[in-house]
């Protein structure tokens, strides 16, 4: 192991600062009556902004693509892209949370602290270049998430979701760790580049140990991106969790898991591409079918969005499946767009939610276009994007993903993707029908009393449309951020 120069730790300063903000909030939250909700939210936004600035700054300091800290981490364009995305997603989640936490009457300090710590985990994970550092970062993210899901501790649904998430999460972490240990046994290394080298030899020898090892590792990752059949936790957890946390899990957590899944598959497992493509194709297909069909009969919007998130995992896996540069940037573009329209949709649910979980069933959306025209218009944009209809980012995202799959010769998977997208139109448009064509008994305008939340929803809607009108800019961004990278696969 090469010696570590102390100044190399400077390169992790964004993560360190973010973690420091998180811990400071934890302390501030437990002194006396704790810290006020708005105060804590403002502090976390400051922390996120500082981290964003530092991320860009450290990127300039490091040699692009060269491993640091004894090969544990790497700073490259790919990591930069995701880190900025996580920070933006977390900032939006903060905007989504303020009123929700206030109304819930829970202490705010710990909540934002956990949010920042989970984000720190994601940022470290996407920089990870070694299975150990990746796994530890993943656990930091996961453990914070378990508590966040159960944050409304006086509500049964929240408790139940948290416990389920924890048990199944522990199971999947165990499976993943077991896979990692088998891989280590087979190859004597955990660093991604070295792993690829050893595996290419092992492949020739038909090594059973490494085969079981990578499958178990993949199962753990599929669990995190909630791809079928490892998605079973998703509906219950999404429904039970406080809605801003659901949005955070559906967006940031999923994006982080996909980022590291691609990193591991494209770099560490690159020699096994023929093998894992079959697995990914099967899992993607099953996710698209299962998610979309199960969503059809849901009357609860949060539950419907949970199944939709499973189906989207299937679409996004097509980018992995392609095992090509197109697949990679298509995946990155899709998750960028997905972040905004999914968080926007959850934001709309939050605005409609009141105590006792009203605003979650489809009927609560009846006549929304009259009661809150702005909100209904934004929701319409998000639902169009989720279905993949122009002029939204969802349309181009799907086009690129399907194109990548077809280009790589996986036409039948893309065909299933298109067909299941058509099915998804039914349940997304069911909400639109409620909003625009049904009348509700209540006609009083919905009070728009959370300016931060409304601004966040409007921002998400605008970005969703911009991504649909000017996809070129963002595609080039994604393309350029994978360029200086030595992908073993590409």
């Amino acid at each position, binding site marked *: 192991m090469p010696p570590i120069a102390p100044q190399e730790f400077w390169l992790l300063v964004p993560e360190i600062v973010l973690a420091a903000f998180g811990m400071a909030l934890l302390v501030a939250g437990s002194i006396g009556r704790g810290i006020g909700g708005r105060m804590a939210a403002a502090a976390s936004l400051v922390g996120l902004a500082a981290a964003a600035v530092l991320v860009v700054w450290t990127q300039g300091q490091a040699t692009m693509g060269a491993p640091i800290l004894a090969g544990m981490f790497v700073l490259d364009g790919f990591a930069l892209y995701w880190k900025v995305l996580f920070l933006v997603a977390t900032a939006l989640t903060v905007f989504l949370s303020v009123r929700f936490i206030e109304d819930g009457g829970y202490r705010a300090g710990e909540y934002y602290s956990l949010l920042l710590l989970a984000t720190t985990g994601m940022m470290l994970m996407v920089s990870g270049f070694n299975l150990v550092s990746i796994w530890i970062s993943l656990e930091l993210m996961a453990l914070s998430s378990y508590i966040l899901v159960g944050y409304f501790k006086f509500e049964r649904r929240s408790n139940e979701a948290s416990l389920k998430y924890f048990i199944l999460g522990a199971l999947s972490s165990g499976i993943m760790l077991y896979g990692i240990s088998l891989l280590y046994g087979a190859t004597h290394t955990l660093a991604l580049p070295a792993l690829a080298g050893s595996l290419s030899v092992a492949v020739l020898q*038909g090594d059973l140990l490494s085969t079981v090892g990578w499958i178990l590792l993949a199962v753990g990752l599929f*669990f995190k991106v909630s791809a079928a059949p*490892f998605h079973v936790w998703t509906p*219950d957890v999404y429904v039970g969790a406080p809605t801003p946390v659901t949005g955070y899990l559906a967006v940031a957590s999923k994006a982080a898991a996909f980022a590291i899944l691609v990193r591991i598959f494209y770099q560490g497992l690159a020699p096994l591409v023929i093998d894992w493509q079959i697995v990914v194709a099967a899992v993607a297909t099953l996710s698209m079918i*299962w998610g979309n069909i*199960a969503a059809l009969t849901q009357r609860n919007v949060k539950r419907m969005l949970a199944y939709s998130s499973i189906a989207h995992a299937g679409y996004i896996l097509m980018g992995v499946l392609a095992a090509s540069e197109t697949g990679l940037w298509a995946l990155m573009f899709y998750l960028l767009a997905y972040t905004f329209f999914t968080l926007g949709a959850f934001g709309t649910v939050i605005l409609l939610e009141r105590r006792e979980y009203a605003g979650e069933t489809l009927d609560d959306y009846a006549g929304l276009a009259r009661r809150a025209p702005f909100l209904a218009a934004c929701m319409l944009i998000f639902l169009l994007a989720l279905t993949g209809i122009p002029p939204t980012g969802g349309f181009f995202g799907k086009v690129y993903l399907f194109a990548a799959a077809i280009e790589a010769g996986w036409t039948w998977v893309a065909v299933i993707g298109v067909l299941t997208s058509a099915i998804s139109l039914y349940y997304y448009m069911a909400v639109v029908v409620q909003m625009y064509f049904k009348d509700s008994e209540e006609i009083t305008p919905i009070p728009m009393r959370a300016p931060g939340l409304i601004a966040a929803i409007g921002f998400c809607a605008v970005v969703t449309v911009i991504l649909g009108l000017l996809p*070129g800019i963002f595609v080039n961004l994604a393309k350029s951020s994978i360029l200086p990278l030595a992908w073993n696969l590409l």
Partner: protein
Amino acid sequence: MQALWLIPLLPFLGAFLNGVVLRNRASRPVVTGIAVGSVGLTSALALFYVIPSYLRSAEYAAGHGFEQVLWVWLPAGALKLTSGVFADFTVDFAFLLDPLSAVMIFVVTFVGFWIHVYSVGYMGHEEGYQRYFAYLNLFMGAMLLLVLGNNFLVMFIGWEGVGLCSYLLIGYYYKEEFPPFAGRKAFIVNRIGDAGFLMALFALAATFGTLRYTEIFSQVAENPAILQSPFAMGLTLASFVALFLFVGATGKSAQIPLYVWLPDAMAGPTPVSALIHAATMVTAGVYMVARANIVYQLAPGVSGVVAVIGCLTAIFAATIALAQTDIKKVLAYSTVSQLGYMFLAAGVGAYSVAIFHLMTHAFFKGLLFLGSGSVIHAVGGEQDMRRMGGLRKMLPVTYWTFVAGTMAISGVPILSGFVSKDQILAAAFESHKILWVVGLMTAGLTAFYMFRLLYMTFHGEFRGTQEERQHVHESPPVMTLPLIVLAIGAVISGWVGLPRLGEWDWNWFGRFLEPVVHTVGGHSEAHHASVGLELTLMALSVAVAAIGIFFAWRTYGGAQGLVAGERWALRFPGLHRLLVNKYYVDELYDATVVRGTWATARDLFRFDAGFIDGFLVNGSRNVTVAAAYLSGFFDKYVVDGLVNLIGWILQLGSRVFRRLQTGVVSQYAMVIAVGMFVLVFFYVVVALQS
């Protein structure tokens, strides 16, 4: 020159402010300031900075355009799965400033600005003042996008944008019955043309892998054979593209057979008629043909079609205008007729002359429409010329500017319309004598109906009631100033492109456009007619115009009122009825296309309701009334069709999946474990076998 991107942006910004941000929240002066200010700024920017700096630039000196790429709109490689030219298909959001688009932005911003000023007075008392200006600014932005795009796709956005604004503004008085109908008609008829435009774009993109003008045209210039290869429907690529682009042009620029929407579009406010339906939007088709002139040069057959359609439209619309009594209807048919002239010029290959006439027409027809608006304003909304007359004394400014416009369009020498029309006729003469003869006859008819309009409106005695007479007043300066400015333009704008007479070549305009409309394959556009022939043709067209004016004076001049005109109508009752009813084309379309569509829709509905629902579903239900529950089940799911079956299967699947979601953690863990074991088992078996 670098500020080019601001030119379309400013009007869009104005529309955004008035239409969204400050909607119902701004006072009239603020609305006016934003709307007129944004267009004023953009025209000042265009006229005093962007165009002059382009004229001084190296690009202009070298005969090139200046291209400004704002962003990559559709990046290359997105469609990599399609092989061939699409592999690198990329579309930029980019602008092109070259002599052609410079002329267009000059016309659009200059005329557009003065019409905005005029609107402040004309629309001053109307409801929805802010809505009006938001739409008008939106139109300006879209129109500038149309003419500034450096590729066909940006042009298409502008094309659709102006169509939308046209629809919105025709239906501006949406509380009345007719305007929304006219708006819909315009929209639907235009969509037919747009479909043709899109076909042409698909063909271009599929062949060249790009939609950028300079790339397509340079590829063609290098290798004209690309365009002359057979493409589809027995046409060469050039003919296919040219034909379908022209289909688009007939929609937007109101040519036979798609002209029917334009006369009805007069339901919109008069300044809108002046700006959109006379000066700018309706000339977009001419601009497009001139822009794609290389394609047309390589498709002589289609160019012939363009010339013939233009020529026919010119005389056809001119004859209709003879018998109309609504002041705006006369001008509307006159516009259709003048657009026909422009297509005639483009069809015979005189592209710069077509654009020249476009420019002079923008001045004099914009002026005439604004003048008619001033008249309508003065007589309290009356549009029927039979109830006007003798307004000369009461509306002196309107009258004298209107005289300038009428003389210009009628072809009185040295006025702008004379200069440009004469060159069209000269070009037609060199191409085919019949085109020239019809064009010349149209010129005579034009002089007649325009002076008829002038006499009926301004001369003789006032034919309205005494009460109406007392209300007649000259328009305020905010309306008469634009009239004066445009009248000056109508008189002098032709002087930049005087026809070439032997050694004397004052045709600066033609030389300016030369880089854009240069010919492929040698033969030059410049006419080499002898001075004598040129002068003879000129004298003939002056004579024809004089005859038209003379007849108009004999019939409608002086104090005789409508008597002589009605006598003519009585002498040829059939012809008169035919013209008044516009050759019954609307009725014909109604009887065939419109009713046909309705009838098809109704038949389909009847088939649905009667045959499928009544016979199949109900009939089989009656049969199975006595049958067992099982066959009823069968009936419901099989006869009602595959669609329901699929839906049912999906619902069933959904319920099955729902069942799997028990909420019991141990079962979830089981699902995960089973999934894991299936994968491992699969691979261990595969690995052991290999």
